[in-house]
């Protein structure tokens, strides 16, 4: 495969986003979905190729460490695929005129930025794509319900900009200490140049900065407000997709650039606090939408805890939790479109929309980690990873996971109880057909994963090994490619 295809992951949706308003008439409405379908195809092709060996593209043939590098391993390829599919699933179909154009353009920009975050091979590009994703999500969030949405978005913008500033600080510090922003080059230099307190400070700055989008503890105050006021489509994209991409970037940095003592512990503590506060706040939340928002903070805390476990065990558990949450939370937000209110509003809803209620139960059970469902394996991997560490803080982490699972069970069963309650004067809304169809598709994927768990375990292991392979990353990026094959000669 020609590695230039990787550039399309970013270029195609970005180009389409800005050219969209110029496309005449009814053709305009098919541009976005078409681009995302092509992106899906590219993602599948990349997955095929990258599961054998990662693909490296030096953009414009400017060789690294000076040029821009895109690096696609199997994790990145899977995320590219997920970006395309989730954006397609949450594509803004309904709306009118200019307003719809803007929503579609912003969704395409979000897709481009997320794809860029997945494949980016240097720190400054990470910053640019992160900002692009941030601006697109500000725009999408501001399109939410009335004035409350504007205020929530304002608070999100301020916190997000502060995060960007911190991240830029961290990147400046890294550049100051090493003189490079290329991840492979950094991986080479880091063991000598990025050490001690300044190294740790740089990591913490970047962690807190990018952590805004990944709903990290301390910088996640925006999430419940924005998810409660934005369109459910947008909440699903932000909680399901954007947070995972920020997480992926942080983990890449942790593996490649910051294998310092102290970084894993910092991640563990912040993840632990995130999980504890998120799940407890979800327990206290009085409406389904904010409950889901807080629970997503809790789940991302779990993912941070998983990635804090050193070695491949941590990567396996973290990827599993992140992918599981990427599947389950968007589906739940989709169902919360009609059933997002207080428990009184959804009492007896199961009688009106039995299928919707069954889907909600299925996803809730998987989120909780009931055995045959994938959520169980994700939590099992997390717990065994934490238990495999030498005591202390890590075992405390395991304890917190078990405790918060109980809390999760309480608040999820409270909702399920309300859905199935025999409320005669029920005021619950019917579930919308699109939400049932969308979450039904995600449920099918969930069940397929549950049935093929033994096969997928091997795939997951291979993904983690590829992601943890620092030497391979450095060699692949920094070794100059073989001389170009003359045209007409088969390679």
């Amino acid at each position: 495969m020609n590695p230039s295809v990787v550039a399309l992951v970013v270029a195609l949706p970005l180009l389409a986003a800005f050219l969209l308003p110029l496309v005449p008439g009814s053709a305009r409405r098919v541009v976005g979905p078409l681009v995302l379908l092509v992106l899906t195809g590219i993602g599948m092709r990349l997955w095929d190729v990258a599961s054998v060996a990662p693909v490296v593209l030096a953009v414009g043939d400017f060789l690294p460490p000076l040029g821009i590098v895109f690096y696609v391993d199997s994790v990145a390829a899977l995320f590219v695929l997920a970006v395309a599919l989730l954006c397609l699933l949450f594509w803004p179909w309904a709306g009118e005129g200019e307003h719809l154009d803007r929503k579609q353009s912003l969704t395409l920009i979000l897709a481009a930025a997320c794809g860029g975050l997945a494949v980016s091979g240097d720190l400054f590009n990470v910053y640019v794509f992160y900002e692009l994703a941030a601006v697109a999500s500000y725009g999408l969030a501001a399109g939410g319900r009335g004035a409350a949405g504007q205020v929530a978005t304002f608070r999100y913008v301020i916190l997000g900009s502060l995060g960007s500033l911190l991240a830029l600080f961290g990147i400046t510090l890294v550049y100051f200490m090493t003189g490079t922003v290329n991840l492979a080059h950094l991986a080479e230099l880091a063991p000598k140049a990025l050490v001690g307190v300044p190294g740790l400070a740089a990591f913490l700055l970047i962690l807190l900065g990018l952590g805004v989008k990944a709903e990290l503890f301390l910088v996640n105050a925006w999430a419940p407000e924005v998810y409660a006021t934005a369109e459910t489509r947008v909440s699903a994209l932000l909680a399901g997709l954007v947070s995972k991409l920020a997480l992926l970037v942080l983990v890449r940095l942790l593996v490649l650039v910051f294998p310092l003592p102290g970084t894993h512990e910092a991640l563990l503590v912040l993840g632990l606090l995130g999980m504890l506060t998120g799940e407890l706040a979800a327990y206290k939340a009085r409406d389904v939408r904010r409950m889901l928002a807080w629970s997503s903070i809790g789940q991302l805390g779990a993912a941070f805890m998983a990635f804090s476990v050193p070695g491949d065990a941590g990567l396996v558990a973290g990827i599993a939790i992140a992918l599981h949450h990427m599947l389950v939370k968007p589906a739940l937000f989709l169902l919360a479109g009609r059933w997002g209110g207080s428990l009184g509003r959804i009492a007896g809803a199961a009688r009106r929309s039995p299928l919707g209620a069954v889907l909600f139960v299925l996803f809730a059970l998987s989120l909780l980690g009931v055995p045959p469902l994938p959520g169980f394996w994700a939590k099992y991997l997390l717990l065994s990873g934490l238990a495999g560490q030498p005591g202390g803080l890590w075992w405390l982490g395991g304890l917190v996971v078990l405790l918060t699972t109980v809390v999760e069970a309480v608040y999820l069963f409270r909702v399920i109880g309300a859905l199935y309650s025999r409320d005669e004067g029920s005021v619950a809304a019917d579930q919308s057909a699109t939400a049932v169809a969308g979450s039904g598709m995600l449920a099918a994927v969930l069940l397929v994963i549950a049935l093929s768990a033994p096969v997928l375990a091997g795939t997951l292991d291979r993904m983690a090994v590829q992601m943890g392979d620092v030497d391979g990353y450095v060699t692949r990026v920094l070794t100059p490619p073989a001389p170009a094959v003359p045209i007409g000669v088969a390679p």
Partner: protein
Amino acid sequence: MSQSSLSILLLGALGLVGIGVGGLVLSRNLYRLVLALAVAETGGNLLLVLAGFRPGAAAPIIEPGRAVAAMVDPVPQAMVLTSIVIGVGVQAFALGLAIRARAAYGSLDMDELRGRMEADIDAEAGAPPAASQHAPAIARLAGQPEAKP
């Protein structure tokens, strides 16, 4: 530029960031929040430029017929350009949101806006309004029972 003036610049940049972050934490007015953000970002950008500074070096422009002398590092300058552009765009967007929020709620005070926003979210979700921490205990207890819709 001498070493001492460099450290003055460095301290100045850090000071700007400190002022900005302090403003973000302490201000309640939306316009001041945006201003504080602008100040903090300026400090950050200055710091980034200083990271690439070399004492006594020339601007990084290669011209034909001129000997390549010691240059300051152009990479941070390219980065700063990006970061300035992003910063301006985001600040303009935040100001736009502030105008919208004021038009809707008639206030630029963050605490008040936040309270109104929470009340709106609660009302839309059909949940009883959250008891304010500042309300008397009686009112808080009275607000407790589950509201049947």
